[in-house]
């Protein structure tokens, strides 16, 4: 059941990326090119996604529990720290170079463009290194906070 519903959710997400044009890095790069060939489509994707999610989350999170798991598990971390801002800044540089973020890159993988085949494995390596780095940095930042 979990596998079926997980697959369906992923398929809807991927179709959303395809329909919205976000599986094409050229559309991302043109969105980011304010001074050149600006294509505002990405803002419409974000708007459509955020509005539906905003409404849907309110309905779903009013429930006691999700359908297929015991409880909701949403991020509870508060506070703006250097890792959040630094990570997002690094992410934005890569996004601006390649025109891919993780969802579109994975969705575009079966299209087998050479650039995608170079991007995705490197992204997974970067993800792995980043997860490791966060784990190593965690005790350090607790120390700084005096906890």
């Amino acid at each position, binding site marked *: 059941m979990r596998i079926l519903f997980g697959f369906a959710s992923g*398929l809807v997400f991927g179709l959303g990326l395809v329909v919205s044009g976000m599986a094409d890095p050229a559309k991302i790069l043109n969105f980011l090119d304010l001074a050149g060939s600006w294509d505002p*489509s990405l803002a419409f994707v974000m708007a459509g*996604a*955020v509005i539906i999610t905003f409404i849907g989350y309110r309905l779903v999170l009013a429930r006691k529990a999700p359908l297929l798991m015991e409880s909701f*598990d949403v991020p509870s971390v508060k506070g703006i720290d250097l890792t959040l*801002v630094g990570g997002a800044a690094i992410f934005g540089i890569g996004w601006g170079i390649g025109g891919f973020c993780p969802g579109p890159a994975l969705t575009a993988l079966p299209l087998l463009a050479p650039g995608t085949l170079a991007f995705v494995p490197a992204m997974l390596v970067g*993800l792995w290194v980043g*997860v490791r780095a966060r784990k190593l940095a965690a005790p350090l930042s607790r120390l700084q906070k005096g906890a």
Partner: protein
Amino acid sequence: MPLAETTFTPWASLLGGGLIGLSSVMVMLFFGRIAGISGMAARALQMVAVPVQDWSWRIAFIAGLLAAPCAALLVTGSPVEQTVSDNLPLMAVAGLLVGFGSAIGAGCTSGHGVCGLARLSPRSLVAVLTFMASGFATVFVLRHLIGGSA
């Protein structure tokens, strides 16, 4: 850096965005989790260890993502249009930065940009403004300062 012209597609993009939102709501309704793709990939590949019942659906979700362009091909009869840079070293660097940055920043366009903003999370708002700003700046430098195709 391909300088491909693209057409502004407000309705298709709004509709596709709506589907992305629907998927995020499905993931919350079924599994009670945020539909952030970087976190999804990290857990699906057990870079972040999760128990099996919290793992299998994530693998299935990624399989669903991969199935999407194939489904689109079956329905429309034409492959998804895209222009991807052929500069492979540059694309690999971009991938490294995107992966590393989303791990360090605890999210990407989907986790912060869609789910986080919909939850009115101040952290996500800061992350989105930051990666938008650095994305704008990067494209400006590559296309207008360095100029031409890399």
